[in-house]
């Protein structure tokens, strides 16, 4: 195994940790200030929690250092070594997938901006003026745009990563590369689009906010957007593991997924809002939505943009649980069946 420079890894890990803490503290200050846990003000627990997390990080890196010297097994170290060994390949595959997407189009990556805007315009006209689904949702255009951007991101990631194993069959049958890399790189390349599409979202919100009554302006809660996106991306990787390994054995998944994702889209409050159901007293639907991960991810972003504040702490917990849960499920399933891929490709 190649030796990796853990000193540098340590430095980066702490820098990233610091950045995350700063972003979270500034972005979610109101929540941190107001919340209380078991009668204690959360503000007093918060610094302890941060220090504790830093300590865990420090101890774990220490463990990896010792494992590297003694050659003992350590999941984190193994992961880092694999990442280090294949980082160039990952970089190249992500680049390829991203380049290929817009290679033969004139506007290129600009479509990442344009697409959500066009979609929003069409849906805004149809649902707001022709069908009047908007109900009494405030800032419906932005409400819609949040939903579209997040849904498109998820849909793009899952569809792309679903085909990642079958479309790389030529490689998998010729060269040995850990197969996890293929779904992960697809999600990474699709995530560039999601990050890019945040720009029109914020831009439109700023412009729209100036002319709307009441005014809508961006607040420092925007700093929390990366957390929402990250949580959804972890979910997408899990979905990618799951779908791509299924796809090898049942090609029908490709067509079935087209149907399931459409169904899922209409089952998620993207164009409508749950308050409409609450008014009508259809409470079972509202309760059911609590089990829809996409609802939580979209609502996460909407709270940040439309309510200009951090989502409740419980929302972080729910999103994290969905993300980590599906990730682990997908990962173990993928690991179990990956040796059989080659026989079916």
């Amino acid at each position, binding site marked *: 195994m190649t030796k990796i420079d853990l000193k540098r890894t340590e430095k980066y890990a702490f820098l990233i940790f610091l950045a995350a803490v700063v972003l979270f503290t500034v972005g979610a200050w109101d929540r941190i200030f107001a919340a209380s846990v078991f009668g204690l003000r959360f503000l007093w627990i918060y610094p302890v929690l941060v220090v504790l997390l830093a300590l865990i990080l420090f101890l774990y890196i220490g463990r990896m250092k010792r494992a590297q010297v003694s050659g003992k097994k350590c999941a984190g170290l193994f992961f880092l070594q694999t990442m280090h060994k294949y980082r*160039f*390949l990952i*970089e*190249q*595959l992500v*680049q*390829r997938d991203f*380049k*290929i997407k817009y*290679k*033969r189009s004139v506007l290129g990556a600009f479509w990442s901006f344009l697409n959500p805007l066009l979609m929003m315009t069409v849906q805004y006209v149809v649902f707001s003026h022709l069908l009047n689904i908007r109900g009494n949702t405030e800032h419906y255009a932005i409400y819609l745009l949040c939903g579209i951007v997040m849904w498109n991101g998820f849909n793009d990631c899952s569809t792309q990563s679903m085909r990642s194993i079958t479309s790389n069959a*030529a*490689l*998998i*049958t*010729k*060269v*040995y*590369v850990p197969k996890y890399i293929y779904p992960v790189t697809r999600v990474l390349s699709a995530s560039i689009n999601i990050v890019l599409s945040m720009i029109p979202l914020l831009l439109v919100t700023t412009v729209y906010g100036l002319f709307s009554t009441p005014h809508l302006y961006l607040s420092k809660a925007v700093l929390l957007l990366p957390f929402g996106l990250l949580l959804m991306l972890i979910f997408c990787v899990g979905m990618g593991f799951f779908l791509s390994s299924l796809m090898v054995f049942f090609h029908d998944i490709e067509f079935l997924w087209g149907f399931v994702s459409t169904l899922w889209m209409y089952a998620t409050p993207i164009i409508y809002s749950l308050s409409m159901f609450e008014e009508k007293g259809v409470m079972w639907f509202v309760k059911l939505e609590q089990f829809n991960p996409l609802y939580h991810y979209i609502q996460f972003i909407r709270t940040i943009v439309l309510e200009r504040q951090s989502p409740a702490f419980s929302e972080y917990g729910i999103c994290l649980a969905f993300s980590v849960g599906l990730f682990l499920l997908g990962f173990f399933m993928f690991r179990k069946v990956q*040796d059989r891929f*080659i*026989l079916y490709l």
Partner: protein
Amino acid sequence: MSEEKKVMLRISDVSMRFRKEEDHAGSLKETVINMFAGRLKFTEFYALQHVSFDVYKGDVLGIIGRNGAGKSTILKIISGIMKPTAGNVERYGNIVPMLELGSGFDMDLSGRENVFLNGAILGYEKEFLHSKYDEILAFSELQDFINMPLRNYSSGMIMRLAFSIATVVEPEILIVDEILAVGDENFQRKSRARMMELMSGGTTVLFVSHDLNQIREMCNRVVWLDGGTVRLQGECQEVCDQYRL
């Protein structure tokens, strides 16, 4: 232990079983009924059975045998693409498989971009590729075309580029499925010379060929596979003399 005798690859008791499902497996209903009745049958066959041999440093090991004897399967298992049903392979060095040229090429990317993509797939380091880029370009003779997308290349040009990328390394273990001679006569001569250079340069080579003359010329040891088992292995001369189809 002398340097000559250092083991690079140890293949011990490797078996590979395939399940051959009939392609026209019938309808879903039939399959389900058969499954419950315990009648879901696969025709099993062993592509390899208890294959063992060692490869030492500096060896040029030829693998010969008829079509379907398991030559390609053993190469795939050695390079880690397939996991054997039983037995294991110990590897003591980095392996560059040359099973099929240009399998990682993307037709929409330019030649230059493909050099880096394909190099990354073959496991080269970034710095290494940057330093060898000019060499690859010179060998492939594609100077003016390197920034064009690959879909506009002729098939000869694609093969030339693929060959140039694949052979720029000096791997510890090189796996070759048939000697690669591509392109026009001039390039064929050049590529053959490059292969010879690689193979005689102290690297350990595993080499599959149907050309017995080539085997005699290149190899010092030969493994003869027949129906998934090792029929004979040993010195090149000895095995080649006994080899009959």
